[in-house]
């Protein structure tokens, strides 16, 4: 039992760290595997970029980009497309793979996405992501990565993409499961902290503050190394203490860049 209010706060922090660690452990490897699969399949299909869209909620029809590779990957992940809009919306509802091409369209034709990313979509291959009896999302490949840049995706490439879609769909499903677990943990923590304004404020500031997020990443690294054994814990401590000691002695900010 916690003896004081500060002990209780510490326990809450520890449980928060555990949840955030679990969140990363659960979802990150799946997302990494998905991105890697997008990269290898895009190379096989001579595509410049690839992306995965999933429904924001089951049967909602609204889609969001979960993972992407290519030039505008960073700008595309997180983008949302409302139900039934655009080519992705049609593929989701119809379950029909499609190839669309307009190599001479300078501005690109995927208005819903190109407007935000600045990318110019000239060729598109979209296949449904199926898991069991449901269409859970859409897998897309855009443009060619080599000459001839204007060559539309072929029916044989549609079949290859459909085969990759099965693997991607399994990963998407695993990711959805992991997110669900994380959501449950977060909700439990929220209920726990319902009457604790201090913890909630801290939680909020941590989520908003990038320095805290970096500190957490460091903590995760230390935690991972520490789990290897006592010698590793000692090594971590020595290393960190040396860096801090040096920093204090010079009284200047370390410039390690």
């Amino acid at each position, binding site marked *: 039992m916690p003896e004081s209010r500060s002990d209780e706060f510490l326990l809450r922090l520890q449980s928060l760290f555990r949840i955030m660690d679990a969140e990363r452990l659960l979802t990150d490897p799946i997302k990494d595997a998905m991105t890697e699969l997008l990269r290898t399949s895009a190379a096989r299909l001579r595509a410049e970029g690839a992306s995965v869209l999933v429904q924001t909620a089951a049967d909602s029809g609204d889609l969001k980009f979960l993972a992407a590779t290519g030039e505008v990957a960073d700008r595309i992940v997180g983008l949302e497309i409302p*139900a039934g809009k655009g080519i992705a919306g049609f593929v989701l509802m119809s379950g029909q793979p499609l190839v669309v091409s307009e190599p001479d369209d300078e501005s690109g034709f995927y208005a819903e996405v190109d407007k935000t990313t600045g990318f110019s979509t000239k060729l598109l291959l979209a296949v449904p992501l199926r898991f069991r009896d449901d269409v859970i999302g859409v897998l897309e490949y855009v443009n060619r990565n080599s000459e001839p840049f204007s060559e539309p995706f072929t029916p044989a490439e549609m079949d290859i993409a459909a085969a990759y879609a099965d693997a991607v769909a399994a990963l998407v499903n695993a990711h959805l499961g992991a997110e669900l677990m994380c959501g449950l943990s977060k909700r439990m923590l929220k209920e726990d902290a319902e009457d604790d304004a201090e913890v909630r404020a801290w939680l909020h500031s941590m989520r908003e503050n990038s320095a805290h997020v970096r500190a957490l990443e460091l903590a995760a690294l230390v935690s991972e190394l520490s789990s290897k054994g006592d010698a590793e814990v000692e090594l971590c401590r020595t290393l960190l203490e040396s860096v801090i000691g040096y920093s204090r002695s010079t009284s200047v900010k370390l410039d390690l860049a």
Partner: protein
Amino acid sequence: MTNPLGPTLEAATAPKFLPDPAWVDASGRGVTVAMIDSGVDASHPDLAGRIFEEVGAKIEGSKVTFESVDDGDLAGHGTACAGIIARLAPDAKIASIRVLGASGSGDAQIFLAGLEYAVKKRYKIINLSLGTTKPQFFAPLHDLLDRAYQAGCIIIAAANNLPQPSFPSIFSSSLISVVKSEEPDPLKFGFHYGEVIELTAPGVSIRTPWLNGGYRTLTGNSFACPHITGLLARLVETHPELTPFQAKSALYAIARRNSKLERADRRPADA
């Protein structure tokens, strides 16, 4: 290959359709075609004056209703399909039944409701580019397809070429299912009796209308489907009483005749 249905069917169908060139020159005049799709851009120059009805799905509680809409096509797909139908049957009247874009559009219930709407209206030809793999819709769809058959509606559905069976395209008794071919001639199709999906039609690199008066080059089974729809609109113009069964028999006979002619054309060169 011998005719798996025996000589009788071909003999019965051939005199009625094959020597009669009328349908080849027909344009779908007086024929109504319903499209269950993403809507249609009726202002596209290729479609002007050809769309006689535009309705969209609306969800009220657990009920799906259809009301008149004027905000066109949300995805471009319906416009593309309508463009193919209009090219093959320029005088056919197209009804656009939009099942995409209503909230909760992931649900096959809306597309089922769209099909039911078209059957109730007794539209002669119904173009269906959508399907579902959800087993709970197997029975209701089968029932609806039978009702369509009894009402004399000819339904053409796009197959999806994926490992999971998609309904209704795998039903063989009361509708016509189509898969894409690389054939460039828009009027040339194949009939493969005994296959799950019996018909092949052009569906690779098809240049067709798109949103905002534009055009796109498209590939997919859902672009093979409207080729058969357009062709059937011509057949129905010359044979308005055509039943779904006769439609299939006629397609079978025409495809066989086409391949026979093709073989005959090739023979001298082969020798």
